[in-house]
């Protein structure tokens, strides 16, 4: 399983702040995204605005994710 955390507008669109995806083997973030979007179709239109973190650090689409990892879906940050 991969734990997926959602924040801000992404949590709002998905209707949840946390979900789990039954991923058995390693794959890339880019490969994980369709699984997230399939589970939460309202997220799909946000794709181009989103960043991702794997285990608490920003990661690009070619980053690997494995069972046990924590993936965070990050809309444009707006602190300050």
């Amino acid at each position: 399983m991969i734990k997926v955390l959602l924040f801000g507008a992404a949590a709002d669109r998905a209707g949840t702040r946390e979900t789990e995806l039954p991923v058995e083997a390693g794959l890339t973030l880019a490969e994980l995204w369709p699984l997230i979007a399939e589970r939460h179709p309202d997220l799909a239109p946000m794709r181009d605005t989103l960043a991702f973190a794997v285990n608490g650090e920003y990661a690009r689409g070619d980053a690997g994710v494995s069972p046990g990892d924590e993936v965070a879906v990050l809309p444009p940050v707006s602190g300050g």
Partner: protein
Amino acid sequence: MFAIVEESLEVGALIQGALSPDCGAIATFVGTTRIDESEGAAVEYLEYEAYRPMADRKLEEIGAEIERLWDVRHVSILHRLGKVDPGEASVAIVVAAPRRGPAFEASRYAIERIKEVVPIWKREVWSDGYVWVGSQVGTRGLASGKP
């Protein structure tokens, strides 16, 4: 000190803690909730959420970047979470340095970096709905379209 906190920010105490005989300058930035108005509606309050502990770590990284880039002796950054009323402080940055140039530059750098990399999100709650700043997602008429 780098911290994400629920309670209101005590900027005076933060500056007091930065006073030091080896520094001649303290530059401080305080971000506050501004009441925006449009089409007969107004912002009632802001609400902040963060991805922790990543956000805490990013604040510390900004502090480390500043200490690499400038001769500063003290950097504090506090950021509020949760509801912040109009006129209240949501972020406070205090930089003490021997000379004023680095103090000014570093405090400006800190707020710009916070707005770029720290996973914190702000929801404006208006009299007629809310909107996630930056994503334009929400329940206000103007914001309900595609992001």
